[in-house]
C-alpha cells in the first residue's frame, strides 16, 4: 500500500451504522411526594424490568438528544447542526423494577419528560 495511490476502502467499511445505544425514557426527576430534586433524573430502560438487570447499565453514558432553532457546531462534523446533546451517566438503580437514576452535566429540562434518552454501551465493563 503506497501512499501515492488512493487506497480503496474495502466493502466492509461502507455498511450503514446501526443503533448502538439502548433506548430509555426520561420519566421524571427524583422526588418524594411533594419535593423534587432536579439534579437526578429517573430513567426507564427498554427491556430492563428488574433491579438485577440494571447492573449492566451502571456507569454507562447517556445522552438527551434534542434539536434547537439555531445551528451550532457539533464535534466531529464540519457543518453546523441543529442537534444538541446533554450528556450524563447512569449512576445507580432506582427501585426494584429496573428503573435507574442518572445524573446529567446540566439538569434535564422538564419538557424532556417522556422523551427518548440514549444509553450508550460505553464505558464497557465486559
Amino acid at each position, binding site marked *: *500500500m503506497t501512499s501515492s495511490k488512493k487506497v480503496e476502502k474495502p466493502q*466492509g467499511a461502507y455498511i450503514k*451504522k*446501526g*443503533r*448502538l445505544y*439502548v433506548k430509555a425514557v426520561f420519566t421524571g426527576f427524583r422526588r418524594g411526594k411533594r419535593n423534587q430534586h432536579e439534579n437526578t433524573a429517573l430513567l426507564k430502560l427498554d427491556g430492563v424490568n428488574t433491579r438485577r438487570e440494571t447492573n449492566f447499565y451502571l456507569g454507562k453514558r447517556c445522552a438527551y438528544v434534542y434539536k434547537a432553532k439555531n445551528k451550532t457546531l457539533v464535534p466531529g462534523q464540519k457543518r453546523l447542526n441543529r442537534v444538541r446533546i446533554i450528556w450524563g451517566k447512569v449512576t445507580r438503580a432506582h427501585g426494584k423494577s429496573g428503573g435507574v437514576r442518572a445524573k446529567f452535566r446540566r439538569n434535564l429540562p422538564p419538557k424532556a419528560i417522556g422523551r427518548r434518552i440514549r444509553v*450508550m454501551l*460505553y464505558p464497557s465493563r465486559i
Partner: protein
Amino acid sequence: MSTPSTKAVPTGDKSKKTTTTTTTVVKTTTTTTKQPQQKSLSTLAVGSKVKKPKTTASGKKVVNSHSNRLLSNNGLMRFSRGRMFQRRALYRISKWKDERAKLKGDKTKKTAGSIQKKKQRLSPLKKKSIGGERNGKERLVRTKRFPRYYPTEERPKKFSVKRKKFSTHPRRFRSSLTPGTVVILVAGKHAGKRVVVVKHLSSGLLLVTGPYKFNGVPLRRVNQIYVIATSTKLDLSAGKFDELDDKFFKRVRPAKKDAEKDIFDTKKEKPKLREERNQAQVNVDKVVVNAVKTHADSRLLRRYLKSRFQLWNGVLPHKLQF
C-alpha cells in the same frame, strides 16, 4: 508443620533420618535440627523476626515466653530490638558469636547493628600547604567547612519520592481482552465494527486491527472501555509484534519552520502515514487473516468480521451473551 531447614542439615543426618523413619512410627515433621534458619544478624532488617519452628514434633504450637508483640494501635513492638536480643539471649548462640568474631577482625565492614562502635574519626582541622612567600607555609584549615547558608525557614518539601508518577502506574487489562480476541468497538469512527485485538500496549490501550481488508479498521489504538469483548478468540501466536508500541503510534508533528514560511500561508500539510506504519499494517494483517483462515469456523468468521454489530428491537445487551 515446621519450617524445613534446608541449609543446616548435612547429608549425613539425612541418611540417618530415613532409616529411623522406616523402622519406627512415621511422624510427619522433620525437626531433627532445632537450629532455626537464620540470616546473619548483621543483615536482618529492623523489625524482622528470627524464625523458630511454630510447632513441636508432636504438632503442638510453640508459644514462646520471650516473643515480642505488637502494641495495639501503634505500629510499635512491645520490646525493642536490642531488648529482644537480651531477652532471647541470642548472644549465646554460637552462630552469633562467630559473626561477631568475624566482624571484629574485619574493620572495613559496616554492620547495620553497628557492633563496631568506633568509627574512624577525621580530625576537625587539617594542615594545608599554602603557596606564596609571606603567607606562612602551612595553615590549619577545617576539614569540613561550615555551611555557607543557614536557611531561616524550612525548605518546601519536594514531591514525595514515594508517590508514583502516573506513567509508572501499573496498567490492568480485562481478563476477557487477551490478544487474538474478537472485539466490538462501541464508540468512535468505527463504532459497531468487529475487530481483532493484536496486543496490549504499555499505556493501557489496546492495539487493534480490522483487518483492514475486512472492515476498513487499520492498526489502531483503542481504550478498553470503548470495547466489548466477545468469546471468539483467534490464535495470533505466529506473529511477533514487538516493535508496535505507543511510540510507534505517536503522532509525529512536523518541525516548525518560522523564518522560511510565510505567516499567511494557510496551507496545512496533510499528515501522511509513515511508510513503516503501512508496512506494519500489512504484516499484522497477514498474521490475523491467516489465523482466521486456519480457524475452525473460518468462513463464518470472515463474514463476522466484515459485518457490524447493531441493536434492534428486542435485543437487550444485558441479556446478550457476548
